[in-house]
């Protein structure tokens, strides 16, 4: 075909973040991107050759940093930015370590042919873990540059000063050289040490807090202008010569076996190219996008039904989960003697909590463009783990890895959906079949029904209270519907592979989560089982990692239950938690516990919490108000939220009118951006608490658009939304304060905080998510609280 496997110029230029900012600062706004690319001397952002694509060597400074003759720098990192501004934060940290002006830097992320393999994104590790090698490499580059200047001027390094990429000799202003003059256009040729990419390092030390110029400042995100004026090139925007469009045809019910395809039903449609099928996988390719959509809808196929139902209907799910034989059982963790605590308790309370399957429901369906030119494969994708997709595509197609590259580009946030990415392998397979570049795009019903799901949870909790009202025994037992949980970019579990008949011998075990609190309860047991649905393969109820996997489910149970325990002894829910966070407990959790105490204090103060037990006496009138609290940690990050609700007694409608969130994320590299990430995370938690549930009958998923699988909307936004950043470190002024993960922590306690607030307002405890109006109204009616 016509393609040369080259990346279109406007795409190539757009892969470098902040390049537009560069142009502005250089006063060259009118000059085309291509011309700038040619003018700047660059190794890392030059068009790589026609392949093969070897892995950039992370032991070379040159793989991470290029300094241009005009004293600007390009950073290349193996991460992807899912919309939380990590790319900007990488620039802040690396600019500081290199001592170069932030405005004179650009960043390239996640293209497997030119950036080192840092996996991509996930687990909120961007700043907590993955920015460290970047920082050490930048510090090493600075050290090498200072040595070059030292040689040039014949003075020792300690007599040099450096600011914004300009080295001067102290006391002699005539002696001055820029980084660009020292090395611009040339390579460092400096080899780093360290056994893996996270350990990679040079000789230089990294900076501490007082030395930072950009880190800790609310620098504006570099990706926002292009997203606002329409110039950003997204993965959905890639156009290649000779490209075609493909759409999938999904089985009409789960476990269906394809028995026939009537190609005549579409072959006379305009633009029709081919029906592509293997096993139960079916797709149609056409010249134009709307033609592919029409042809996929019109294609006549017949399917045989499976002998048994793939799963129970969603209304029977928890009944099924209660009685199913576990596929695996988690080893119980036990502290103290829970049995003795329960048998000697003054009061024992029990409760059971249910969280259904929830979808990732990315704002747009899976998509990718694959270019098979010259016997290579280039995939343009928003896969958050671009390197994994590259390996997955190579294995799936049986191609050597160095014949495949993935170019990560911006895409709709998928909260983990793009780590179990489907469209990349589909586009690559069809492209190989047709010998032409192919764009695949999942439609809305396809994505909402067939995307990966967060496992349903059924959690049984028991608590033993002594005569003084202390929680002395605690028992968490979870049952998750998570057997055959999908991993990241697995070529033998990606949906196209499953539909084509490939399946790994052993389904992944899955997991059943655990509470994440630092309560010092003397006798504590946590255990869990994983159950599976009858259909484990070729099913839309395939579980995968959804933002903070299992966290919201486990925490809905554990933090609702702590409130129930507080209510059982008529204690204030915040004070009850503080009592359990005994600061003097020596069990290895002191660091997180001290910071938990600080965060709970901060959230209470910011809210103006007045101590009293829940619930309030039920008030008169249509609207009942109340407040609820939730607390949890994720990794080293502590989050606590207070939600104030209005509950409508006539309709059951719940509005979170005010939310205060306090969070200790350690060092805030970009405070404004961090606050926003916390805010958006907790609103995602609110959406899952209020609305989100996958519905299905015994044949198929029936929630498949924004009506049947609703999400939070503008009208749901709290009237007041406050995020308080806390530094609860026992040594708050320490110069080596580190950043912790931010992308997921804040949604963990939200479901519980909301249920606790509804209880406070109404006296009605609802132990089933989502807290939609019909469910709330039914509970209010049952308790005689409705109007």
């Amino acid at each position, binding site marked *: 075909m016509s393609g040369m496997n080259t990346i279109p110029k406007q795409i190539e230029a757009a892969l470098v973040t902040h390049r537009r900012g560069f142009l502005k600062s250089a006063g060259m*706004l009118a000059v085309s991107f291509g011309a700038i690319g040619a003018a700047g001397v660059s190794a890392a952002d030059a068009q790589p050759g026609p392949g093969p694509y070897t892995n950039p060597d992370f032991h070379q400074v040159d793989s991470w940093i290029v300094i241009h003759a005009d004293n600007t720098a390009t950073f290349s990192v193996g991460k992807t930015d*899912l*919309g*939380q501004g990590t790319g900007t934060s990488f620039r802040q940290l690396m600019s500081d370590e290199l001592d170069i002006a932030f405005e004179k830097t650009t960043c390239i992320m996640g293209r497997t042919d030119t950036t080192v393999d840092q996996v991509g994104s996930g687990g909120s590790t961007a700043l907590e873990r993955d920015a460290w090698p970047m920082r050490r490499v930048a510090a090493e580059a600075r050290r090498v540059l200072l040595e070059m200047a030292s040689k040039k001027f014949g003075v020792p390094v300690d007599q040099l000063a450096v600011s914004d990429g300009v080295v001067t000799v102290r006391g002699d202003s005539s002696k001055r050289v820029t980084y660009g003059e020292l090395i611009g256009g040339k390579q460092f040729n400096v080899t780093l040490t360290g056994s893996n990419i996270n350990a990679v390092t040079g000789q230089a030390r990294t900076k501490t807090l007082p030395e930072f110029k950009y880190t800790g400042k609310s620098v*504006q*995100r570099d*990706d*926002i*202008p292009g*997203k*606002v*004026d*329409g110039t*950003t*090139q*997204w993965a*959905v*925007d890639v*156009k290649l010569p000779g490209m075609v469009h493909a759409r999938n045809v999904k089985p009409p019910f789960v476990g269906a076996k394809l028995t026939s395809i009537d190609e005549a039903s579409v072959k006379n449609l*305009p633009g029709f190219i081919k029906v592509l099928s293997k096993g139960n996988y079916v797709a149609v390719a056409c010249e*134009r*996008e*709307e*033609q592919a*959509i029409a042809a996929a809808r019109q294609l006549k196929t017949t399917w045989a039904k499976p002998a048994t139902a793939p799963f129970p209907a969603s209304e029977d799910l928890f009944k099924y989960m209660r009685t199913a034989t576990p596929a695996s059982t988690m080893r119980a963790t036990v502290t103290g003697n829970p049995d003795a605590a329960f048998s000697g308790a003054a009061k024992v309370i029990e409760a059971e909590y249910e969280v259904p399957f929830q979808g990732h*429901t*990315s*704002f*747009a369906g899976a998509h990718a463009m694959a270019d098979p030119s010259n016997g290579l494969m280039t995939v343009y994708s928003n896969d958050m783990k671009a390197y994994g997709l590259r390996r997955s595509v190579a294995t799936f197609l049986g191609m050597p890895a160095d014949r495949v590259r993935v170019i990560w580009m*911006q*895409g*709709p*946030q998928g*909260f983990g959906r793009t780590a179990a990415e489907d469209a990349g392998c589909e586009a690559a397979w069809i492209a190989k079949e047709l010998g032409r570049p192919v764009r695949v*795009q999942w*439609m*809305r019903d396809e994505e909402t029904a067939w995307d990966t799901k967060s496992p349903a949870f059924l959690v049984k909790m028991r608590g033993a209270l002594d005569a003084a009202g202390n929680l002395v025994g605690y028992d968490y037992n979870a049952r998750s519907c998570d057997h055959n949980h999908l991993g990241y970019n697995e070529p033998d579990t990606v949906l196209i592979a499953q539909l084509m008949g490939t399946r790994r011998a052993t389904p992944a075990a899955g997991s059943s989560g655990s509470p994440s609190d630092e309560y010092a309860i003397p006798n504590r047991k946590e255990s869990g089982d994983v159950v599976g649905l009858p259909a484990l393969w070729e099913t839309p109820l395939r579980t995968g990692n959804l933002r903070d996997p299992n966290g919201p489910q486990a925490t809905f149970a554990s933090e609702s239950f702590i409130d129930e325990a507080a209510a059982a002894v008529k204690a204030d829910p915040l004070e009850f938690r503080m009592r359990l966070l005994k600061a003097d407990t020596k069990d290895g959790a002191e660091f997180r516990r001290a910071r938990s105490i600080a965060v709970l204090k901060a959230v209470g103060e910011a809210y103006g919490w007045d101590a009293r037990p829940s619930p309030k006496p039920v008030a008169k009138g249509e609207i009942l108000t109340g407040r609820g609290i939730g607390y949890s940690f994720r990794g080293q990050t502590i989050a606590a939220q207070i939600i104030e609700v209005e509950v409508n007694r006539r309709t059951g409608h719940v509005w979170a009118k005010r939310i205060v969130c306090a969070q200790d994320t350690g060092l805030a590299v970009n405070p*404004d*951006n961090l606050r*926003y*990430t916390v*805010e*958006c*995370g907790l*609103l*995602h938690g*609110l*959406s899952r608490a209020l609305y989100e549930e996958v519905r299905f009958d015994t044949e198929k998923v029936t929630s498949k*658009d*924004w*009506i049947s699988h609703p*999400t*939070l*909307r*503008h*009208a*749901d*936004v*709290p009237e007041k*939304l406050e995020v308080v950043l806390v530094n609860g470190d026992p040594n708050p002024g320490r110069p080596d304060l580190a950043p912790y993960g931010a992308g997921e922590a804040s949604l963990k306690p939200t479901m519980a905080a909301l249920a606790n607030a509804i209880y406070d307002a109404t006296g009605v405890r609802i132990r089933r998510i989502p807290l939609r109006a019909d469910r709330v109204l039914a509970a209010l009616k049952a308790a005689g609280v409705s109007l």
Partner: protein
Amino acid sequence: MSKFDLKVNGKSHTVDVEPLTPLLYVLRNDLDLHGPKFGCGLGQCGACTVIINGVAVRSCITPVSSLASGGVKSEITTLEGLSQNGNLHPLQQAWIDEQVPQCGFCQNGQIMTAKAMLDKTPHPTDAQIRQTMNGVLCRCMSYNRVQMAIKRAAKVTA
């Protein structure tokens, strides 16, 4: 296939497509205007919003043949058409000042819907903003800052 004359961002174009082709694909694939996005194809999310004759319209469910009836060309504006002489529209500037987008994929719909609203109602109340914007979805949950940016832009354009 049939020929249709379209006026987009002040420029005239002729496209040769099936009459029922949604405007979204014509804008994105024939005219290379990538501001409007495919989100649902059902008119439910707002990602594909463009302004046609002053009204925010979902281009994913608007057949191209509906735009050229009676020989009167509709005036279509996309996100790319908001800036004038290289200057951002006040809404776009407010979006940068408030640092609104997370992933940003929905922001075309947020901005274009807000634009149509402010053109008709320069000083919307909070309730009007919530009501008008309620059909424009965001999965990153950028809603709070979208609303703040609309209020900021409303002040600037007052």
